[in-house]
C-alpha cells in the first residue's frame, strides 16, 4: 500500500466511503429492475381468520395511505398491536406494516416536537423550553397591557442568534390575534431590509394596508389622500400627524373610545441606531410618551450594548426596558433542556400516546442520565463548544428523518455513526479538509508559497518567487531520490553520472512548466488558500462594499506573477495536516 502511495501519492478525493445501502438504493433507480419489480403482482395481505373482520378491510388499504389515518384508525392500530403480540409468530408481515404506520406517526410527532410545532391546533402558545418561561410571561404582560389595557410601552429584547426572540414574540402575537384581532395592528420593520428611509415608506404602507383590512375597506378612494402617497417628507409628516398627536391633546373625551394599538416590531433594531440621525427611533420613542394612540415598540437585537449606541436624546426617551434572553447556565441545565426537547409529553387526556412514545421517553431518559452514553457525551460537547440548543436540534433532525424503523432510530442514537458523519460534514470546508483535497502539485505549490512567505520579511509571496522555490525544492528532492533502473539495482549507481540515458525510467518528480503551474496557482486562489494582500473580505456593511467595489488600487495594476499573496495557513499548521507519509512532509519545515 505504501508503495502505491509513493508512486501515485494519496488519491485525491477518495475519502468518501462507499455505502452498501446506497448501492442498493441506486439499484432501485434502475429502470429495468423497476420494470421487473413492477411486474410482480402485489398480493393483498391475507390475515388469519381469528382477527377482526373490519380490520381485514382496513389493512390492505392502509398500506399506501399512511397519510389518511385518523384518530379512530389509530385506536384500531393500537388494538391490533395488542393482538399482534398474541399472535406474534404467525403474523410477521402484518406486524411490520403496522409498526411502519405507527412509527411514521411517531416520527412525525418527534419531528414536529423538534421543530417546535404545535401538536394540536387549539393548544395555547407555550414556550418550547421552561427556561424561557419568564421571558414569555414578560412579553405576554407587555403585549397585553398594550393591546388590552391600551398602555404605551417600549422595550428591546437582546439575545444572540437562535435564542428564540422572534419565536416567542410571534407566538404571543398570534395568540393575542385570536381574541383581539381588531384591537391592534402590527408593523414589522427589519434593519437588514429597511434603511431608515425605506422604513418610513414601509411603515406608511403597512399602516395603511392594515387599517384597511381592519376596517374591511379594500379600496380607499373616498379618503383620497392615502398615507403612503407623496414624497418622503410628506409621508413622514403624515405618519407623525396620525400617530403623534401630542400637539392637540385637547380633550380627554376622545380617550374613551378604544383606539387601535399600533405595535411596532423592529428586527435588528441596532441598525436603526446608527451613527447618523436616529430620526425614526427618536420619533417612535417620543410617540410612546406623547401619542394618544397606544403605541408599543418591541425591538430585537443581538447587540449587548445597543443602549449605548442610542443618541442621548433617544436614550432619554426610551423606556430603558431591556429583556435579555436567558443563556443556558451549566451542563446539567443543558442536559435537562435537551431532554425537554426530545421527550414527547402529552397532557393526560391525549390519546395518541403510542407504545413508541413511552419507549422513546424511557430511552432518552436512560441515555441522558447515564454519563457515558454517546448522546449525553454529544450533549456535553455541544454545551462546551456551542452552547446552542438550536445547533443540537438541527443536528438531530437528519437522524430522526432518515430512520426507517424505531430500532434504527434508537440504534442511531446509541451508535452515533450518522451523527459523527454529520459533524464531519460540517467541517468539510475547513482548511485541513481543503488541504487534503489538493492534488500533489497543488500541495507542492502551496507549500512552496507558504515557505516563501515565511522566509520573506513581510510574509507574502508572489507567483515568481513561489515557482522559483518550487523548482528549487523539487530539484533538491530529485537529488535525493535515487533514480532506479528497472532491471537491476546495480545500475543505480551509474544513474547519477548520466541521467539522460535512463530518463525513461526516471523516478524523479517532474518540474512542471511555469504555464502549467500558473493554473494550479489560480486554483489555490479560488480555494481561498491564498489571498491577495490587503484584499477586503466579507462585505458586511455598505461602506465595506463600497470600498470593495473601488478596490482596484494596486492589486490589479501589478502583473500577475508579481502580485502579492499571503497563504491562509502557516507552515506549522500545514505540518500538522500533511501526512507524514507524504513526500512533501519534509517541506513543512524550513
Amino acid at each position, binding site marked *: 500500500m505504501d508503495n502505491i502511495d509513493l508512486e501515485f501519492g494519496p488519491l485525491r478525493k477518495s475519502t468518501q466511503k462507499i455505502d452498501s445501502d446506497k448501492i442498493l438504493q441506486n439499484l432501485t433507480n434502475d429502470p429495468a429492475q423497476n420494470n421487473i419489480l413492477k411486474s410482480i403482482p402485489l398480493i393483498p395481505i391475507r390475515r388469519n381468520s381469528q382477527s377482526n373482520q373490519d380490520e381485514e378491510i382496513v389493512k390492505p388499504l392502509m398500506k399506501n395511505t399512511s397519510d389518511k389515518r385518523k384518530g379512530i384508525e389509530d385506536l384500531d392500530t393500537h388494538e391490533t398491536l395488542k393482538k399482534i403480540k398474541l399472535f406474534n409468530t404467525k403474523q410477521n408481515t402484518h406486524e411490520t406494516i403496522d409498526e411502519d404506520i405507527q412509527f411514521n406517526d411517531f416520527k412525525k410527532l418527534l419531528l414536529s416536537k423538534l421543530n417546535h410545532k404545535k401538536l394540536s391546533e387549539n393548544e395555547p402558545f407555550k414556550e418550547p423550553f421552561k427556561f424561557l418561561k419568564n421571558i414569555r410571561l414578560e412579553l405576554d404582560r407587555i403585549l397585553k397591557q398594550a393591546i388590552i389595557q391600551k398602555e404605551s410601552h417600549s422595550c428591546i429584547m437582546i439575545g444572540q442568534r437562535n435564542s428564540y426572540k422572534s419565536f416567542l414574540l410571534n407566538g404571543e402575537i398570534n395568540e393575542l390575534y385570536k381574541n383581539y384581532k381588531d384591537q391592534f395592528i402590527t408593523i414589522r420593520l427589519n434593519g437588514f431590509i429597511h434603511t431608515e428611509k425605506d422604513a418610513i415608506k414601509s411603515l406608511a404602507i403597512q399602516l395603511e394596508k392594515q387599517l384597511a383590512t381592519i376596517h374591511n375597506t379594500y379600496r380607499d378612494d373616498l379618503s383620497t389622500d392615502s398615507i403612503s402617497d407623496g414624497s418622503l417628507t410628506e409621508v413622514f409628516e403624515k405618519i407623525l400627524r396620525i400617530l403623534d398627536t401630542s400637539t392637540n391633546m385637547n380633550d380627554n373625551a376622545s380617550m374613551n373610545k*378604544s383606539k387601535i394599538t399600533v405595535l411596532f416590531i423592529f428586527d435588528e433594531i441596532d441598525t436603526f441606531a446608527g451613527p447618523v440621525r436616529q430620526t425614526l427611533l427618536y420619533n417612535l420613542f417620543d410617540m410612546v410618551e406623547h401619542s394618544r394612540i397606544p403605541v408599543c415598540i418591541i425591538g430585537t437585537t443581538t447587540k449587548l450594548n445597543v443602549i449605548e449606541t442610542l443618541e442621548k436624546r433617544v436614550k432619554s426617551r426610551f423606556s430603558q426596558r431591556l429583556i435579555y434572553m436567558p443563556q443556558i447556565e451549566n451542563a446539567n441545565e443543558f442536559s435537562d433542556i435537551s431532554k425537554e426537547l426530545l421527550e414527547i409529553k402529552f397532557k393526560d387526556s391525549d390519546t395518541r400516546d403510542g407504545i413508541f412514545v413511552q419507549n422513546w421517553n424511557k430511552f432518552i431518559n436512560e441515555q441522558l442520565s447515564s454519563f457515558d452514553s454517546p448522546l449525553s457525551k454529544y450533549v456535553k460537547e455541544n454545551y462546551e463548544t456551542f452552547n446552542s440548543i438550536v445547533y443540537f436540534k438541527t443536528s438531530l433532525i437528519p437522524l430522526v428523518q432518515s430512520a426507517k424503523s424505531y430500532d434504527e432510530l434508537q440504534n442511531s442514537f446509541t451508535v452515533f455513526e450518522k451523527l459523527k458523519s454529520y459533524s464531519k460534514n460540517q467541517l468539510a470546508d475547513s482548511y485541513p479538509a481543503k488541504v487534503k483535497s489538493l492534488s500533489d502539485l497543488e500541495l507542492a505549490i502551496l507549500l512552496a508559497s507558504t515557505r516563501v512567505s515565511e522566509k520573506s520579511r513581510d510574509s507574502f509571496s508572489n507567483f515568481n518567487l513561489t515557482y522559483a522555490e518550487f523548482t528549487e525544492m523539487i530539484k533538491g528532492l530529485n537529488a535525493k531520490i535515487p533514480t532506479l533502473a528497472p532491471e537491476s539495482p546495480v545500475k543505480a549507481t551509474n544513474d547519477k553520472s548520466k541521467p539522460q540515458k535512463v530518463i525513461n525510467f526516471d523516478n524523479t518528480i517532474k518540474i512542471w512548466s511555469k504555464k502549467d503551474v500558473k493554473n494550479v496557482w489560480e486554483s489555490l486562489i479560488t480555494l481561498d488558500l491564498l489571498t491577495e494582500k490587503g484584499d477586503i473580505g466579507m*462585505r458586511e456593511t455598505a461602506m465595506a462594499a463600497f470600498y470593495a467595489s473601488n478596490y482596484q488600487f494596486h492589486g490589479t495594476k501589478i502583473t500577475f506573477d508579481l502580485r502579492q499573496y499571503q497563504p491562509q495557513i502557516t507552515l506549522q499548521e500545514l505540518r*500538522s495536516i500533511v501526512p507524514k507519509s507524504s513526500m512533501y512532509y519534509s517541506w513543512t519545515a524550513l
Partner: protein
Amino acid sequence: MAATLKDLEGWKIIMRDENNNIIDENKRRSRRRNENITIDITRDSDGVSFTRGDSIITKDKNISADLGSYSVYYIHDIRLNTMTSVVELIAMTYLRWFEINPFNYYSYFEKSTFDNTKSIDYYKDRFNEEVDRNQLYLTAELKEISLKEFTQLANIRPVSDWKDELETKVINRDFSVRFLCDPDSTNFIEIDFEKLRNKMLTQEPKAAVQYFKKISIGGVDAVKGKQLATKSKADPVKEVSIREIKVESDSENNLSLSEEEEEDDGDDNDYHSDYEENKGAEDVEGIEDENTPSELSDSENDCANSDEKLISEEEYGESKKSTRTTKKRKISEVKEPKSSKKKIKATTPQYRTAKIKRFTKKNVDRARKKYTPFSKRFKNISDIPDLTKYADFNQSNLDLQMANYEAKLTAPTNSKVVETIFSKIKKQLYSSHGREKLIDNNDFDAYIPGRGKDFATIYLSLYTAIEAGTASTVYIAGTPGVGKTMTVREVIKELQSSMYQEELPEFQYVEINGLKMVKPTDSYEVLWNKISGERLTWGAAMESLEFYFNKVPKQKKRAVVVLLDELDALVTKAQDIMYNFFNWTTYSEAKLIVIAVANTMDLPERHLGNKVSSRIGFTRIMFTGYTHEELINIINSKLQGLNDTYFYVDSTNGNAVLMNSADAENGETLKMSSNIKKVKLRMSNDAIEITARKVASVSGDARRALKVCKRAAEIAEVAYMAKHGFKYDGSLVKADSDDDNDDNFADDKDVIALRKLKGVDNGVSNNEEEDDSVQTVHISHIMKALNEIVNTYNVEYIRKLPFSARLFLYAFLSLIRKTTFQEQEIGSIVDEIKLLADVNGNNKYISAVKNTLYQRENDRPDNNGDNSNSSTGQIRILSWNYIINNLIEAGVMSKQTMRHERLSTLKLNISIEDIKKALDFDETLKNL
C-alpha cells in the same frame, strides 16, 4: 356596493333624468352625459326603492342584538360602473344613541351643570335614562355600503313630528336627526335636517360633502353658513387686489398649457380632493373659500366669484386663454349660456384613481406652481395683501384629515379596558401627561418645578418682542430631559392665553423639530406652510420666507414665534438653515422670534463659526440637570391626586376605579357590593426620594426619573397581579403553584442594606404588604427598576458563554497582557489557544479537551505528546466561526473585514475588567 352583476341580483337600477323620465339602458349611451341623472335602486322582492338623500338601515353584526344589530346610513351618492364595481353606494354614517359618548354629550348640552369630576359611569347611567333612542347624529364619516346588508329604509321624521304625541312612530324605523357631530361623537352642531338634505341634493356629491364638512367643522348652521359666505364675498377691496396678483401669475404659468388644458378637460375633472394643494375646495365651489389664501395661487375661485354654481374645468381653461384685460368680461359671458352644460359636467361622475391623476397635465401645472416662490408673484411691494389672516389657512382641512385618520385608528369593536390600580399612575408618569391638571396653579415654581426662573426669563423676552413687534432670539441648551421643550411650551401657552385676552398682538407659534423631518431643508417647507398654508418645494419656500421676512411690511403680517427644537439635527454642510433662521431675525421688518433648543451650549460656535454666532447676540439660557429636590417635586406633582388615593377594585377581574376624594373622606362604603374592595395606592416617600437622588447624581434627567418610577410601579403591579391571580385581559386565575415571579424582594441584598441605611423598619413595610387594602410602591421596587437601568449584562453574558468562547477570550486577554496592544490578529489568537492547549501538560483531562476542540481521533494515543500525525485534527477549535460571529454580533468585539483570516484584527468593545471578572468564575481557566 355591488362588485359584480351577480351581487346585483334582486335589485334594479332605475335612472331618471331631470323630468323624472326613466332612461332606458340603451338610450343612455347615446345621450351621454347630457342629463342630470338621478339613480334609484329598487329591490325586486318588495319594491323598496331608495336614492340619494335617503336614509337606510343596514345589518351590522358588530352591534349586539338587543340594540337591533343595525346601523343607519345617509345615502350620499350612488355611482354606476366605477372602476371596481357596478354600483357603489357611498353613505354618511349616523351615530346611534349608544355610540354617543355620554361624557361628550353632557359636556356639550349641559355646559352649565357639567362637572367633569363626576365619573363616566355616572353620565353613562344618566345618559341611558335620558337619551332619545330614536335620535340619530349625522357624521361626515363616509363609508361604502354593501347592498347585501340593506334591510329597509329609515324614515327620518321632522322634529315637529316627534313633539306631536299623536303621530305613530315605529321604533327602529323612524328616527329624528337634530345634530351633526364628529365621528368620535364630539362637536355637536344643531342642524335642520330637511334643509341640509335639500341643500346637499342640489349640489353635486363632491361639492355636497365638502359643504357638509365645512358645516361640521366650522360649527355654522346650514343656513347661516350660506349667509356667511356671501357676506365675506362682499369685500371688494381685498378681492380686487388679490385678483390682480393672480392673473399675473396665471399668465406666467398657465398660458403655455392652456391648450392642452382644454383638450383634457372633462376627463381631467379631478374629484380627488387633494388636501395639500387645497384642490378639493377650489374644484368645488366658491362658497366659503373667499377668505382663504388658496386663491392666491388659483384662478378658479376668481371666476367662481359669488356664483353658487360650479365651475367646470372647461371654463377654467378657456378663461385662461383670454388675455388679462378681457378676462373679467369673458367670465361673465361664459356663465350664462353654458350654465346647463356646466352642470352636466359636474354631475357626471368621472372618478379616476389617484394613479391616473398623477400624470394629468393639470398636475404639471400645479407642480409648476409649487416651484414658484411667493416673492415672484408681486411686482410691487404695495401689492402685497394683508397677510395677517394667513395663519388660519387650511386648518380646517387638516382637522378634517385628522378626524379621518383618527376615525380609522378607532377600533371597530369596543373592547373593555381593564385597568389595574397601577394603570393611572403609570399613565400619569409619562412626561407629557397630566399637564392640564396643574394649570390652575399660579405659582410658577410648583407649576413647572425648578424652572421658574428660566420660565420668567423666556417669558419676558418673548413678551417684549411680541408686544413691540420686533425680532428676537433665545438660545436654550441643556442635556436631554431637563425640561427645555416643556418650558418653552408652557411659556407659549401662557402667551397665547394673553393673546386671546387681547393683551398681546396676535402671533403665530410654529414648532420645528429637527428630528421630526426627513431632511433638514424640510424646515423651510414646514415654516412656510404654517405661515401661508402653501406647500412649496424647499427652494421656493426659502425664497418666499426670505421675501416674507425681509420685504413684506410689518403691518401686513403677524409675529411668528418659531421653536427650533433639536437644533443640531438642522445642521447641514452649507450651514444655510441655521444661518438663514438667525439671519432673518436681523431684518428690521421681520417679526420673527426664534427659540433655538439644543443639547450643547457651544453648538452655534462649533458648527457655524462667527458668521452665525455674531447674529446670535441673544439671550442664552443653560438648563442644568434637575436637583433631587426638584425631581421629588416633579414626581410628586405628577402623582398629584393619585398618591394615597383609594380605588374600588373589582375582585373578580382586578378592574379598578378611582375613588373620588370626597368619597374617600367620608369613608363612604355604601356602594360597595360584595366583590368590590377598597384598595389604597401609595408610592412611598422614601421610594420617590431614592429615585430622585439616584437620578440627580447621574444626569438629572426628569424623564429618566419618571421612567424609574413607572417601572417600579410596573414591578409592583406584577407582584400585585400575581398575588391576586388577576390577568391582564380581565380574567381571574387562581394563582399557579409555580412561582412565576420572583416577588420576593427581601432577598435582594441591596434592598436590605438600603433599608437599614434609611432606617426603614422591615417589619412595618411587611405588615403593610400583608394588608391587602394598601398597595405600596416600595424602595425595593425602585431599587429593582434602577438596577435594571444601571446594570450591564456583559459579565453575565460572558460568564454563560460556552467553554470554547471563554477560552478564546482568555487567550485574547493574555495576548493583550503580553503584547500590550489592544488590537490582536486572529492568527496570533489561534496560536495562543493552541499554545494554551499544548502547554498545559498531557493529562487525561486536557487531552480530552484538546481532542474535542480540535476534533482529533482519540483512539490512537500518542506517546510523544505530538498529535500532528493524527490526520484528522483541525487547526481551529471546533466552534470557531460560531463563537467569533456570536461575539461580534453581541458587540463584545469588532473585527476588521479582511479576506485573510489570520491577519484580520480583533478589538474588544467592552472593558477588559468586565471580561476578567466574568472569566474569574471559570475554574478551568483559572488553572491555566
